[in-house]
């Protein structure tokens, strides 16, 4: 349980710069000089298998993740209090994220690691229970929490805080916010096709960009997986040299020793690819994060379109109502209406009826004006806030991806060095033949 007297705002610690337990570099996502209060150190420490009955009373196995939190000031002071911890499963993370994207439609909400393993090259397991997959997911979930908790807007959310501190009763709290209803309408809106007359040009460009980003990252992930597959094949076939050199050395006198040793190096070469490709998965995970981020970006742009559309609809509605009033007041029918037709056919209505109708229209117009005002504000607010977050996202993306590329290059260099080492060793053996 969390300590009492804790303020609601959260922060993360710059430990994200350090290498994690598995030796991988965490993304530096916390900007220097951010305005977050560093209140809490967060990490997803472990993963465990559980069994239980699910919603339809069927036995299932699932994985839970241990979230540990510690007050930042204690860490800073050098005290090492035991962390508070609770267990969460993936579906709860999903719930949290869904709540966030509905509640903050102007924020590019950080994505979760993938639900199922995709873009796998054939030797990599696609099994959700595979320990490597679980480990990578643990890292991804931690990454998610750190990103959210360091976000200038999201980090202040209460539901997020409870997610990290209240193991039981959190779900109920989420549903109590009534976000579910908003979630449903959002989904409907996002998938609907509607024509917007004047969308903001910048947002349209950004939406186009998000499509590009999605397309390119997924292409890259696919291509990388294929490359990994082939590279695996090349390395493994060299293992056959190991065997044949060993067999050959048996019938040779002077050449025997050299051949035998060289064979061992070939075996080592073939075996080395497993670790190399395992490490490369980290790069793939970084790409995947931005593949999913692209979707989040697109959603924000779509939300803009939606607000713009609603404003346009409301304005349109108001205009047509005002026109109707005008017609009613002046008797001049400019637009075709059923009333107009019936009037012509059956004669004008009585003045009392006209008055009633006029009054109704006035009310509707007043409502309409309110609506237009609301929608205008909604749209403007969304544009303003979203644009700020989009800029933030852009900078973060550029930084993160550049770093990911550097990481990748470093891995490649390491692979080359290993290759040189093995083949130089083999050459030494050949020279001794």
């Amino acid at each position, binding site marked *: 349980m969390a300590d009492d007297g804790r303020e609601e705002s959260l922060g993360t610690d710059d430990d994200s*710069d350090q*290498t994690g337990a598995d030796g991988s*570099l965490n993304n*530096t996502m916390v900007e220097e000089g951010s305005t977050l209060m560093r209140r809490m150190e967060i990490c997803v420490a472990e993963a465990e298998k559980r069994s239980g009955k699910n919603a339809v009373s069927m036995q299932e196995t699932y994985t839970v993740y241990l979230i540990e939190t510690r007050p930042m000031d204690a860490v800073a002071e050098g005290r090492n209090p035991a962390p508070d911890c609770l267990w969460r499963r993936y579906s709860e993370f999903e719930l949290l994220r869904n709540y966030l994207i509905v509640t903050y439609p102007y924020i590019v909400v950080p994505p979760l690691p993938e639900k199922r393993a995709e873009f796998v090259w054939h030797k990599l397991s696609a099994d959700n229970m595979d320990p490597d997959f679980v480990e990578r997911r643990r890292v991804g979930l931690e990454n998610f929490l750190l990103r959210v908790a360091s976000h200038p807007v999201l980090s202040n959310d209460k539901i997020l805080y409870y997610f990290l501190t209240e193991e039981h009763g959190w779900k109920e709290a989420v549903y109590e916010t009534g976000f579910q209803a908003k979630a449903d309408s959002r989904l409907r809106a996002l998938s609907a096709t509607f024509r917007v007359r004047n969308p903001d040009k910048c947002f349209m460009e950004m939406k186009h*960009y998000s499509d*590009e*980003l999605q397309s*390119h*990252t997924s*292409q*890259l992930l696919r*291509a*990388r997986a*294929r*490359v990994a*597959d*082939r*590279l695996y*094949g*090349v390395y493994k*076939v*060299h293992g*056959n*040299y190991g065997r*044949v050199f060993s*067999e*050959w050395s048996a*019938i040779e006198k*002077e*050449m025997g020793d050299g051949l035998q040793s*060289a064979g061992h190096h070939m075996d080592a070469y073939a075996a080395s690819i497993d670790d190399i490709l395992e490490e490369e998965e980290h790069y793939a995970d970084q790409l995947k994060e931005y593949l999913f981020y692209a979707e989040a970006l697109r959603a924000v742009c779509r939300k803009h379109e939606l607000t713009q559309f609603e404003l346009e609809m409301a304005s349109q509605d108001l205009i047509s109502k005002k026109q109707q009033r005008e017609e009613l007041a002046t008797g001049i029918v400019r637009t075709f209406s059923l009333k107009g037709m019936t009037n012509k056919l059956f004669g004008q209505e009585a003045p009392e009826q006209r008055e009633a109708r006029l009054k109704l229209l006035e009310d509707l117009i007043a409502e309409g004006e309110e609506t237009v005002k609301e929608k205008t504000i909604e749209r403007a607010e969304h544009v303003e806030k979203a644009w700020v977050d989009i800029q933030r996202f852009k900078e973060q993306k*550029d*930084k993160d*991806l*550049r*770093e990911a*590329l*550097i*990481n*990748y*290059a*470093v891995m*490649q*260099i390491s692979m*080359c*060095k290993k*290759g*040189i080492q093995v*083949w*130089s060793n*083999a*050459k030494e053996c*050949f*020279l001794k*033949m």
Partner: protein
Amino acid sequence: MSISAPRGLASSGQKPITEILHPLSAAEEPLSPGPDVTVSGGRDKEVGLTNGTPVETPSPASASVLFNRLHLDDDLDPDTRDPYADTETHDLFVTVDDPKKHVSTMETYITYRVSTKTSRIEFDLPEYSVRRRYQDFDWLRTKLEDSQPTHLIPPLPEKFVMKGVVDRFSEEFVETRMKALDKFLKRIADHPVLSFNPHLNAFLSAKDLNKRQGLALLTKVGESVKSVAGGYKLRVRPPEFCALGEYLDTFNQKLGTIDRIAQRILKEQSEYLTELREYGTVYASWAGSEEELQRPLEGMAGCVTTCCGALEDMSENMSQDFLPVLREYILYIESMKNVLRKRDQSQAEYEGRLEAAVLRKQEDRTPIPAEVEKCQDKMECFNADLKADWERWQSNKRQDFKQLLTGMADKNVTYYEKCQAAWESLITVLQDKQTEDKTSCKSLWEIQQ
């Protein structure tokens, strides 16, 4: 007669023609044998001294062996130079180069320039330059096989190529074939007996290789006369030749496996290359939609392309240099097996005749005919030559494979070095704008070291 200590000659690794001093110039130095070259002699005189074949006493047997040998090789010129004369200095250098295409109405073919430099008196001139086509090399090989049946003749590259599958006139094919032909001639020129063969002389010096069909026919007849032993069956092969036979079989098998592995690697590398190219283009197309990341992504694409080039180079090298040599040795093993079979034949013939003669002697005291002795000499000659050639072959094989495999290792090292250089220079580009974020810069450099 003057005989000096026999000297094994180093394997094909002669200096290029341009570097060889004229044999008559004062500064010529003798080629010294490498440390692991076994001293051997294809000369029967030394047979008893160096490789311990069952010859009782060196002097008388060797004289008769020499005499018989001259008789056995019927088409040898009687005044052929004494093969046991002193050839301390390496005095015959041949090179094959300069392929050219010839187009005539009947056919299209390639000729190669065969250049010779020599100080041997068997040759009229110190230098020759002739053009020969594959057919001519084939002719030479057949002639050598027929005239020197007890010796191992180096193999030629494959004669038949499937038209439509392999382009006989492509640069790579011609290059590979030329290297094999060069090796072929060098191995013969290195051989203490084969290099004195008059057919070789003709091949190297005659303007027009008059292939003299008539003589070819004669040779064929001569061959069949020699292999009258067809009816005899070998009972027991001496243990040393058994070991030889077994070795050849196993070695053949291993080489076959290595060939298959090498081919498989080339195939895998080619598929890897295809995917890698695609991978590079994805980075390039992504760069098009980015601003800040445009240069880094273009850099990635460029780097991947560089790696593709390096891989292509290595694969090409392996297919042009590595595989042909392997295949050559497989052919060499076949030749060796043939010689071994012929040796078995000559032993079978001798034993057969001896047995018959002994029986007859027991019956009616008929003395053992001279023929039987001839057979024995022939067999012993065969054994000696084969052993000598075997030793040379083993030592050459060791050199060749050492060279082949270190070459393979070198190519791989070069490939990785090229790739490493490309990635390292990319990191500089990528880190270009990272002056602000010093922390990640530092930690990454640390990892790199």
